[in-house]
């Protein structure tokens, strides 16, 4: 209920934005762990715990976190590659039926996922034409070979692979990493989606072509008013790419809001840690590497038995007794910003 009010409030704060196209509420995902002892307590990897957010058309949202923070799990649940353990998924306001078959196909017509590694997400024994033709046929956009070819060429032109005729008959091994990722993007666009989930789309690519791909996604976002979820571990590219940012730690969302505000004035201690650890040449002029100690050390804890309360509390320099006892609820900081941290909690938060 509280979340509902907040998303309504967020919509009020940004009146130029239309209704959210894809919403997640209280998403949880627990992966079962295989156990030897049949009588033992059932264990599971608590990959995502109580995630709630919304994607808006024509707006990019970045999901930032370290490996193991659950960001890929979120994307895969949204793409319905995984079934959530609990939680509600809403597409254009309607709850999505969590069943397979026809409804799944309808859902995927609107929501598409781009994978991290273009070297393994394309089938090596098929040409580009096959990769683009399959979704066109399956989703009923092309009914014969001529239509398929025509639309595939249009798709290749949209991702700036020209001359498109030449690329059509190529196999993945004949393409560079950037070209492969463009083909993967074209394949996602083939079903004319409203939501694009990009799971680290540039981290496998060469540094000099990363920006090309990011700029391509930005252009597509503007041209087609796509809602984009951009998953990354690189907070600087999140700032470049996205209007909003969500920070995840060990399966919990810890902070969110407009990207620049979150990066310039992080509220949650984990966000501060993440930003202070990121390489930043501009910092050179102020002080050097060794004189800027990190506020915290260590790594993401085991998610089979995650720390109680706020999962960041064992590493947090500001940890209080309450942090290990209760899970902090979302505190609204105004202007679309929120954080899950007791440091900013009022009595309301503590009481919940």
């Amino acid at each position: 209920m509280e979340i509902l009010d907040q998303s309504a409030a967020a919509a009020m704060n940004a009146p130029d934005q239309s209704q959210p196209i894809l919403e997640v509420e209280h998403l949880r995902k627990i992966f079962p762990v295989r156990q030897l002892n049949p009588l033992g307590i059932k264990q599971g990897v608590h990959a995502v715990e109580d995630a709630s957010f919304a994607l808006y058309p024509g707006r990019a949202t970045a999901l930032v976190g370290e490996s193991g923070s659950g960001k890929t799990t979120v994307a895969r649940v949204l793409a319905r590659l995984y079934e959530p353990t609990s939680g509600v998924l809403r597409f254009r306001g309607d709850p999505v039926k969590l069943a397979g078959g026809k409804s799944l196909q309808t859902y995927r017509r609107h929501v598409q996922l781009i994978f991290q590694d273009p070297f393994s997400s394309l089938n090596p024994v098929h040409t580009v034409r096959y990769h683009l033709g399959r979704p066109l046929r399956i989703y009923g956009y092309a009914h014969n070979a001529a239509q398929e070819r025509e639309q595939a060429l249009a798709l290749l032109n949209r991702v700036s692979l020209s001359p498109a005729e030449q690329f059509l008959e190529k196999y993945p091994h004949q393409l560079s990493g950037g070209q492969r990722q463009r083909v993967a993007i074209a394949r996602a666009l083939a079903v004319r989606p409203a939501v694009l989930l990009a799971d680290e789309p540039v981290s496998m690519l060469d540094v000099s072509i990363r920006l090309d791909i990011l700029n391509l996604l930005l252009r597509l976002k503007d041209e087609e008013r796509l809602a984009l979820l951009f998953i990354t571990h690189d907070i600087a590219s999140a700032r470049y790419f996205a209007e909003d940012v969500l920070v995840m730690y060990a399966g919990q969302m810890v902070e969110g809001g407009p990207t620049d505000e979150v990066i310039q004035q992080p509220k949650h201690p984990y966000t501060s840690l993440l930003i202070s650890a990121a390489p930043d040449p501009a910092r050179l002029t102020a002080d050097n590497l060794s004189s800027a100690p990190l506020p915290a050390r260590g790594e993401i804890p085991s998610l089979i038995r995650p720390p109680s309360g706020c999962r960041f509390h064992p590493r947090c320099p500001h940890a209080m007794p309450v942090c290990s006892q209760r899970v902090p609820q979302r505190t609204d900081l105004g202007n679309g910003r929120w954080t899950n941290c007791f440091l900013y909690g009022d009595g309301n938060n503590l009481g919940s």
Partner: protein
Amino acid sequence: MVSNKQSNSASTLLDVRHLHVDYLAANGTVHAVTDVSFMLGRGEILGLAGESGSGKSTLAYAITRLLRPPAMITGGEILYYQRAHPADAVSRISFSRLPSSNGTHKQSPNQSGEPPVAGTGQAVDILQVSPTQLRALRWNDLAIVFQSAMNALNPVMSVGAQIMDVLRAHRPDMNPDSRRQRALDLLRLVGIAPDRLRSYPHELSGGMRQRAIIAIALALSPEIIIMDEPTTALDVVVQREILTEIVHLRETLNFSVIFITHDLSLLLELADNIAIMYAGRIVEKAAGQELYRRPRHPYSYGLLNSFPALHGPRRKMSGIPGSPPDLRAVPTGCAFHPRCPLAFAACSVDLPPLRPVTTEDSEQVVACHLYHPASAAEPPTIADMAAKYEALAEGSKV
């Protein structure tokens, strides 16, 4: 390079001259490293940056002579100035040097009381030494931390055993107790609790495995450590810890580092000097700060401009159009000219040599025709390069 040549040559540790490495492939020879020359000073952190396929890793493996066929070192020399005077150098080659049991202090190089002048120590050409000498040289003087360091540890040996294994091989006269002591010292040095000595690699996190690898590289207090993308597989927070550790260790142990990465923004914080490689050649070399403030080569500018910033105004960035060249058929002239927004007629014809940029007291060298002293045109400013890159990005749809 220009000024105080004396002090420079005295502190030189490694002098790579005109190194060429080719891969002899069936469908053409790949010129992975072409005519690379640089000097590494004592205690210096030299960063090597470039896209994948620019020859950074090949260069590192060539320096340690770890290349296997089809890779061939086809020319050049790698001169290593040993740390002590010739007499000691001989004893070092013959495996019989006494162990230094204290991990936190490097063995003093001037045991005879004379100040060590590297010029007087024999320069060894690493490419010419015999297998026995090479074996003595490696790890004692020259250690390497591999790219996939997380997988470089033996999964069926405990971390301690792997450190002691190095000591057993290179310091046969060391007794088991002092080996164990040294292993404990090393773990403590890199920030791992000594009780992890018996841990197996799978019991350690990625960051700790990386630290363990660095501990093994440090085992014999080498002069030079080559780090090939040591933090690429790690998360930012862990990466930052490892980098802080490297800087800290460098300060206490005074070794030199050749740090290879594609992440230029990381190098800018870490390295004293940075060499930018493109298509097997060094196209620019400068002090880290200088490169950040004033990149000269259009490629360096493009590479710097490929990393979004954390602060400052948000602006559209363009990256570098095109993709790296096929090293079997490197473009004539400057290899970067097909992608360069500032290329002109001479670029596709003549190969620009590495030249000092300015007459000022600067060690920045750049291989670009735009900075030719005889050229009539003014060298481009940062704004010029930005404008040209932008124009190129506008012209071609992303």
